[in-house]
């Protein structure tokens, strides 16, 4: 079913998305919030610019965005997939607890803030380009991969901002860069990814490459650094000195 969103109110749009019997394709989307919130069992394709909190509490549905997404994509998402063929705003995957998010371009500040995992629930975020500061802030679980494929030239700087992993106490961050990662907080322990580490991300890089028609093997050849919480020093200077 096709829905032309235009200037439709977000409540009305979401009602129609939920009521549609099968998959939905939204045209001319202009900032309607909460699209696909709590949704399961269907695919929603969005052409345009979906509003904040796209796929909040998503529970198994697939959302595909042909365009850029705004802030808080996949907020507290539980299951399903969000594929953004463009860039995403701040707080991508905020408090996410399951499912996968793939962004071809870049993402904003606080990507994966407060992500967590429990037993079989392991959320995954793969960002093709760069991310802003506070990547994986307060990370408690799950996996975030930043590929540094798009955006500013890789030779200038690592594809992350400042204060990566501040307050991190679980989960894994993989960053694909030839650059040294500077200014990491004391709670974070960084090293070059070993082949056993890389095995963890292979299926997700493959999935990313498949969606955006890229060469996974080529991507995986780059230097990856893996960041883990530093178990020896978990709460030292938890927040940054101002």
């Amino acid at each position: 079913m096709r829905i032309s969103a235009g200037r439709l109110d977000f409540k009305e749009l979401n009602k129609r998305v939920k009521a549609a019997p099968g998959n939905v394709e939204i045209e001319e989307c202009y900032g309607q919030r909460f699209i696909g919130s709590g949704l399961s069992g269907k695919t929603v394709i969005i052409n345009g610019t979906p509003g904040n909190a796209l796929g909040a509490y998503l529970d198994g549905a697939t959302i595909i965005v042909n365009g850029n997404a705004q802030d808080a994509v996949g907020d507290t998402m539980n299951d399903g997939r969000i594929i953004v063929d463009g860039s995403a705003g701040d707080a991508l995957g905020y408090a996410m607890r399951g499912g996968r998010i793939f962004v071809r371009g870049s993402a904003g500040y606080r990507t994966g803030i407060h992500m967590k995992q429990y037993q079989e629930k392991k959320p995954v975020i793969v960002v093709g380009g760069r991310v802003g500061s506070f990547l994986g802030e307060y990370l408690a679980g799950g996996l975030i991969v930043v590929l540094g494929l798009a955006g500013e030239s890789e030779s200038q700087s690592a594809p992350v901002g400042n204060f990566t992993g501040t307050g991190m106490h679980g989960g894994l961050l993989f960053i694909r860069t030839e650059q040294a990662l500077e200014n990491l907080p004391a709670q974070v322990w960084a090293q070059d990814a070993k082949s056993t580490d890389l095995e963890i991300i292979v299926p997700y890089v493959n999935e990313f490459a498949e969606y955006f028609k890229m060469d996974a093997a080529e991507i995986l050849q780059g230097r990856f650094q893996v960041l883990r919480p530093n178990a020896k020093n978990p709460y030292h200077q938890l927040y940054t000195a101002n």
Partner: protein
Amino acid sequence: MEKGSHQHHQQEGHHQESRHDGQQQESHQQENYRQCSQAPMEGLGLMGTPMPYSDATTAHGGLRIPSGCAISGIIDRTGKRMSGERIIQSISVMHDRSNGLGGGFAAYGIYPEYKEFYAFHIFYNNLSAKRECEEFLEAHFDIINLSKIPTRKVKTITDEPLIWRYFVEPLQTKLADSQLNEREFVMRCSFKINTSIQGAYIFSSGKDMGVFKAIGFPEDVGRFYKLEEYKGYSFTAHGRYPTNTPGWWGGAHPFALLDFSVVHNGEISSYDANRRTIEMYGYKCTLLTDTEVITYIIDYLHRRKGLNGYEIAAVIAAPFWQTIERMPREEREKHEYLRNVFASLLITGPFSILVGFEGGLMALNDRLKLRSMVVGEKGSMVYMASEEAAIRVIEPDLDKVWSPRGGEPVIVGLDGGESEWL
């Protein structure tokens, strides 16, 4: 927004008195507002403040909630003038970010036929305020032209004050007597009216620009003022979601002083430190909202201290010391100097602002980027908004779109123009 609290407020004239019953505890911030509010706002549609927390959105520890005020700005770098229709379209997409308690616009290049004169936009509560204010104006200025600002009836906008516009220039004798430069003279006259003439409030005082604001959703405010009939080279817009401060006509954004104007989404954690500092330099916080302190800080740093937009950003949204430490020497020393000299003007807490000025626009986020800001370019046009959708709705096919980093200003001037901001 109970009627009772509204009336109560009118009797008392102090913000802190307008809180609902049952909210007995007074936070530090409310205390501050009370101290700095020698209110000129009685009768200008002041409503009770709904809740004792702050102007815009975060409720817990800096994690953002996708709501809050909305801001949008447009500039054509060639200086070509466009109708106000586009900025109304843009801000209306973000309708849900505001709650109908304030909307407004700043428009630049709209009065070319009077561009030599200061354009005062004034709210009057009643005719006696108007009479008193006009006496003051006549004593200090040549009034070149005066008229009601044209409005149309809009269902959702009610209780409007009298809204007048004056094109003026300072009386040479008064100006010479004052031993002030012209802009300082105009600013002081405007403060004088706003603090001493009850029921009169100058909300716009620049040349070849104007502010249009009201209680209402921004798109309704635009229709109310017939903004589509004005033509300017740049516009900013604001949709307000007041939380710890009252929604009243003067409290709507933009806040303007001479030719520059500020629209703001966020709340200032450092409000009182900033207020105490800026009041030492002769500014008076009278408007019951944290945004005015940003306006005065920018005026102080730019007009009085001669800082450009990038230097202002390095003061109010300064990088962390540990970021400064890693900068190359020259840059590091500059940042250290600015942070040390203007330490009390660092603004903490979440904000995104747009500053309009003669010949340009500036966008800035707080250093932690706790509010959103998207910038888009298409040919000579530059768009800045809280949400990308607000840009796409008026320009679907952008050449470039990006989110500036926290504390990283985006400053756009007119082609070939020279601005002290750049």
